[in-house]
């Protein structure tokens, strides 16, 4: 083990910030993180063993007990469930003779669920030893089972099992732009750095990761900080269930993303960039490394980039290890420093005090992609599209009940109904916009628009038709948040688990009227008192469906549970307040049991 660890440590330059990289290598080799490895790493990296244990326990893809030599995970997104994932999982368990959540006695195979793997357009999907298995069906599971029993190395498996498709149904403003490597960097230097930042400002581009912070303002704030070095981080931890547009961008447009990072570096004065790539996208790692190498060879990364004396910048890819919370910028920074992904306290913001406590710009993949084209075409070109508050276009990952799931690009301000007809959605019951942390809209609200000022989305767009049960959706999302809560703060740590149990009680038909009251009450605490965005949005699936379909919740209640002292309509006041609705659909008359 010592020699193996020495190699791994050497590859990581003995840097504790690369702890995840080191542990991922140990996990891949020993199928878990053995105690002895922890001892050695504590010693060699000079960090407390508690830090290593905390990291191992925090990330879903690191384990303290051995997993199977073939470790299979089924993506448990709601869209996977809608594509028969549950029955396939049972079939896999039966075929492979292993229980879900367990390791087979001979340690050949282990099987479990995992949060959305970013393949909702080609589900039901799985992962085997970290590599994607899209479009699973029974014949494929038979094939996989046979390969496993024969102990065929993964490298010799048929490539089509792993084939990820990128279907661009509607390329728009950005996806159709011509581009050659270096175009944006040249444009930036020809125009001037300050002038290019002014163009980004003029474009009114807002961060595509969800929060919608103005990009130019973030860059400018970072650039004026006295502290150095400054860092550029590309957030490729696309973990929101139902989103996969960053996967597509990195798969097909990586150069344009890296170029956006590079011009950001020029503007803010940074020499080091990091890409935080979600563990589920391991299949992209080698490809991206090659692209980076190619860019170095072309003089687009490294020293004196494109002949600009003194402009040095390079990019390192660091992999996550399975934690949704690491999509939050400060949690991501913690993770990049080799720690559990726990969101930091603000102030100070990461722009001022980020990676290694230095000024840091963290932007989404799509944001960097957009800045590349803004640098080439100018800010006005971008600002002319969309709405005044939401300029430009937005990439959507469309999945669920529609004929054409895949990638779409729309100008902001597009109506939801138009998007639904483009993707071939019929008999729509509702749409989840922005993933579980976003908003559920019913089919009465389809004339609303895609925009920061109406329905904002980091990219997830899940369609549900009228055959779907709303509680299947809410239950899946609520379980997701309880599973992904980092556990740092009390309201979210305890509250998301309470919510899950309370919701299940009602769904299972054991809830009485007072349980509805408690459900709303927990929602409110979790939403208003949590430390970060995860907790703030974890109650959204319940709150938004409660607002759209109060009658369905009421139908779930035990009839005998109605007590005269309980005012149903008053209970919904919280939900009305939070969703800012007061229409008739958000009110209930007290139902009297006969």
């Amino acid at each position: 083990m010592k020699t193996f660890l020495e190699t791994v440590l050497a590859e990581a330059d003995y840097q504790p910030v690369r702890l995840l990289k080191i542990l991922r290598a140990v996990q891949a080799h020993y199928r878990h993180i053995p105690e002895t490895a922890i001892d050695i790493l504590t010693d060699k990296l000079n960090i407390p063993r508690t830090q290593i244990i905390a990291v191992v326990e925090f990330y879903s893809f690191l384990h303290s007990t051995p997993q199977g030599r073939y470790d299979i995970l089924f993506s448990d997104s709601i869209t996977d469930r809608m594509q028969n994932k549950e029955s396939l999982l049972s079939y896999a368990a039966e075929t492979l003779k292993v229980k879900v959540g367990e390791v087979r006695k001979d340690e050949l195979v282990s099987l479990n669920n995992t949060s959305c793997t970013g393949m909702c357009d080609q589900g039901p999907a799985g992962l085997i030893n970290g590599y994607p298995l899209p479009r699973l069906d029974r014949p494929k599971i038979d094939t996989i089972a046979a390969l496993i029993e024969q102990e065929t190395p993964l490298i010799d498996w048929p490539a089509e099992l792993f084939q990820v498709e990128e279907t661009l149904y509607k390329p728009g403003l950005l996806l159709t732009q011509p581009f050659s490597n270096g175009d944006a960097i040249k444009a930036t230097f020809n125009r001037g750095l300050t002038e290019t930042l002014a163009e980004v400002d003029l474009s009114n581009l807002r961060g595509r990761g969800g929060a919608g912070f103005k990009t130019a303002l973030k860059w400018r704030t970072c650039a004026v900080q006295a502290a150095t070095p400054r860092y550029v981080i590309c957030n490729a931890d696309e973990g929101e269930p139902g989103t996969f547009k960053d996967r597509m961008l990195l798969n097909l447009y990586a150069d344009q993303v890296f170029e956006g990072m590079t011009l950001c570096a020029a503007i803010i004065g940074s020499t080091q960039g990091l890409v935080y790539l979600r563990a589920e996208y391991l299949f992209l790692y080698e490809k991206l490394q090659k692209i980076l190498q190619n860019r170095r060879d072309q003089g687009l990364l490294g020293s004196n980039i494109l002949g600009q004396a003194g402009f040095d910048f390079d990019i390192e890819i660091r992999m996550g290890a399975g934690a949704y919370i690491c999509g939050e910028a400060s949690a991501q920074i913690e993770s990049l420093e080799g720690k559990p992904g726990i969101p930091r306290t603000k102030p100070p913001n990461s722009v001022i005090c980020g990676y290694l406590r230095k000024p840091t710009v963290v932007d989404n993949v799509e944001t960097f992609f957009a800045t590349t084209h803004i640098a080439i075409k100018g800010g006005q070109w971008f600002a002319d599209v969309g709405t005044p508050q939401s300029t430009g276009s937005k990439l959507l990952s469309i999945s669920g009940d529609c004929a054409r799931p895949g990638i779409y690009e729309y100008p902001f301000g597009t109506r939801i109904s138009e998007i639904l007809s483009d993707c071939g959605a019929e008999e729509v019951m509702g749409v989840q916009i922005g993933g579980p942390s976003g908003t559920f809209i019913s089919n009465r609200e389809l004339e609303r628009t895609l925009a920061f000022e109406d329905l904002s989305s980091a990219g997830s767009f899940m369609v549900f038709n009228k055959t779907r049960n709303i509680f299947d959706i809410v239950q899946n999302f609520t379980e997701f948040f309880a599973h992904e809560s980092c556990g740092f703060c009390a309201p979210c740590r305890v509250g998301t688990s309470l919510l899950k149990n309370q919701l299940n009680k009602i769904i299972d038909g054991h809830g009485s009227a007072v349980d509805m009251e408690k459900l709303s009450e927990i929602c409110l605490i979790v939403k208003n008192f949590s430390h970060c965005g995860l907790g703030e949005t974890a109650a959204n699936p319940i709150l938004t469906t409660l607002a759209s379909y109060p009658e369905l919740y009421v139908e779930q209640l035990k009839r005998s549970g109605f007590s005269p002292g309980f005012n149903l309509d008053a209970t919904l006041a919280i939900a009305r307040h939070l969703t800012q609705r007061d229409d008739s659909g958000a009110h209930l008359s007290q139902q009297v049991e006969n």
Partner: protein
Amino acid sequence: MSGTLTIDDQTIPFSDGQTIIEAARTAGVYIPHLCHRPGYTPHGSCKLCTVKVNGRTCSACTFPAAEGQKVVNNSEELQEARLRITQMLFVEGNHFCPTCEKSGNCELQAVGYHLNMLDNHFPHFYAHRKVDASHPDILIDHNRCIFCNLCVRASRESDGKDVFGIAGRGIHKRLIVNSPTGQLKDSNISVEDCAVQVCPTGAILVKRTGYKTPIGGRIYDQHPISTIACKKRETDAT
């Protein structure tokens, strides 16, 4: 920078670098808290100290005081939420106050009294947690840990040791000990350490000191936490 701010209409001074909770404490205004202790790096995890600052929800223990801030602390809405959060902490672990050695000296219990907590309100998780009695002088009853991180900080910041850590995710959080076996006896903790004294609940106890002060005569049996917490306490970091 120094100046004044108001908390519930009372004007109080603050000095450069103070957080809202510290400015309040210095002025004798109690803001409920569990994961905060003067002198230690603020943590901001229990959320009991949540206040409204100019209408915005903030943690008083981490938020910097600034000139002219209007802070709402003692509103019905906030007290109600604090009560619910405290109840969440009670149902998350296993707290049987009548049989706990810390009863009367326990901040969690005292905060419960302060908030008029009469029941646990939420269903219990009945978590399976262990007791580590391995150390000759110190006992850890994990059933009572609320993950306030104070022992972690005290060990690192005051004792210079790093005996404790918090691992796990979500509801599976757990306190861990920095020793090859994971047991306290194999760590370098000693009974004089600040980390041993700082625990706000009965999770870390010193052996053979039990019931020296009889129940009824203990700190919060005598005085409500709202009057004690503003004074300097033994467990404050220096």
